[in-house]
């Protein structure tokens, strides 16, 4: 029983990482229709930046954190401004391939600067200290996963509902042509989206370094987050809060109960099978916007 509960909680907490990474993915898709396949690379890049600031340049941890976030925000902005802005209106497939190229570029840069070894960085939040919740102990870092994801989603929800820029982003997400005819500066809005996406990915990456160090494993995590985003429906941020942990739980249940039967690695396939099954039944994902058609 204890095992079950601990798989449940660890799965839940890990699932929130997928939520965190998927936020950026959903934002970009919602506002510009682009499938950002460079999600994993953005995540690692943020982690590497943090590593560079704190381990290589020996800056204090807080400075490293803020520095990485600001640089990633700049990266996001530049990606839209420099790469996607001149290509507004081009076929989506071309833009999708462009994100692949972006991922490759980032990977190349990272190999160049930091090599391909598994690195460790100083811990921001401990992964060994934990608190007791009844019979199970939850480590601090897992609580951080949950807390920061929920915080970010909550802040973004407030941002969309209450601010003018947030409303403008929702308008752009709904209909780009109408947005332009309403006088909204589309490129500004899309740049902000990319900015937030890069920052969210970076935060996920930085948190992850505390658990598994910096490595290219994150790319796999990036793809799993895309699966989460697809199951969630690509339109709703709150949907991610529900689907992320769900996928995490399924994954860890697979590790705990199916792996012994199958001989390992069921958790890698698990999320994708779930994605397949869900899309068969609900093509728009659980929380996606259905096409509103009045008959």
């Amino acid at each position, binding site marked *: 029983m204890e095992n079950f509960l601990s798989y449940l909680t660890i799965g839940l907490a890990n699932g929130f990482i997928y939520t965190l990474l998927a936020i950026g993915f959903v934002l970009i898709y919602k506002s510009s229709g682009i499938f950002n396949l460079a999600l994993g690379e953005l995540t690692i890049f943020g982690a590497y930046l943090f590593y560079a600031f704190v381990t290589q340049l020996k800056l204090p941890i807080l400075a490293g954190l803020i520095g990485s976030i600001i640089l990633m925000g700049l990266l996001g902005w530049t990606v839209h401004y420099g790469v996607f802005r001149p290509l507004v*209106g081009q076929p989506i497939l071309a833009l999708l391939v462009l994100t692949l190229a972006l991922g490759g570029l980032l990977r190349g840069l990272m190999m160049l600067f930091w090599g391909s070894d598994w690195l460790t960085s100083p811990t921001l939040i401990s992964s060994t200290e934990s608190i007791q919740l009844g019979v199970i102990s939850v480590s601090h870092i897992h609580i951080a996963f949950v807390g920061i994801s929920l915080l970010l989603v909550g802040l973004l929800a407030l941002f969309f509902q209450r601010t*003018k820029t947030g*409303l*403008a982003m*929702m*308008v752009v997400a*709904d*209909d780009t*042509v*109408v947005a*332009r*005819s*309403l*006088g*909204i*500066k*589309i490129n500004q809005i899309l740049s902000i989206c990319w900015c937030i996406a890069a920052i969210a990915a970076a935060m996920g990456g930085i948190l992850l370094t505390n658990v598994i160090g910096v490595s290219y494993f994150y790319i796999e995590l990036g793809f799993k987050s895309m699966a989460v985003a697809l199951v969630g429906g690509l339109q709703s941020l709150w949907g991610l809060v529900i689907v992320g942990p769900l996928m995490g739980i399924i994954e860890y249940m697979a590790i705990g109960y199916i792996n012994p039967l199958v001989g390992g690695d069921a958790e890698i396939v698990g999320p994708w099978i779930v994605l397949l099954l869900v899309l068969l039944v609900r093509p728009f994902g659980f929380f996606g*916007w259905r096409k*509103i058609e*009045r008959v």
Partner: protein
Amino acid sequence: MLRLVNVEVTYHDVILVLRGVSLELPPGKLVCLLGANGAGKTTTLKAISGLLPFEDGKVSDGSIEFEGRRIDNLDAEIVTRAGIFQVMEGRRILEHLTVEQNIRAGALIGGGNLKKDLDVVYSYFPRLLELRKRTAGYLSGGEQQQLVIARALMAHPKVMLLDEPSLGLSPILVKEIFQIIQRVNKEDKISILLVEQNARLALNIADYGYVMENGRVVLDGDSIQLRDNEDIKEFYLGLSELGARKSYREIKHYKRRKRWL
């Protein structure tokens, strides 16, 4: 105030849709643009408001001037910020947002007191006040049309380009909408360029009218003159030369081709 001189519009670089359209919208007036389907009326509006690039079109010749400044081929965002607002054909609302969010979206352009503007707009359209929290995609056609006009009002435009506001609406609603359009023109002093299929209603509220066919303006004049014009009566109002309904029993056997010039 708004002047088009010999405007030519091409789609995909090969399809010539407007062949030298010239028209003028004086400040504070309501001008209507009539014509059969495919005459180029919507293209004229899109040329003014800068929405042509979305269909791979551009103004290939001629000039469009607004308050002395050239605006042809400018970005749609810039033209809107200059004060020209188009209410697009087919009621393009933001389906997944609520009614209130749709209306607020109109105010994103800035320069107005949000609360006061909302009150004014809701007083024009009390039905929308009841429906504020509803998802806009589920509104009926008439309500959606009110919504897009409300959204346009929030932007305090100097010129409103209305594209077929009566599309698919019941006659009673059409009358209501037209009353509102007239009110907007007279009370808020917004100049309006109205594209309409319903020639009779349009000429009733307009000060001046242009008739388009095949990408050209073929007739223009005061609305009163146009209403009494024989050709308009026969081709757009369906009245034969005697002012009576066309009797299909007396249809001529040969096709009568009308040449405008």
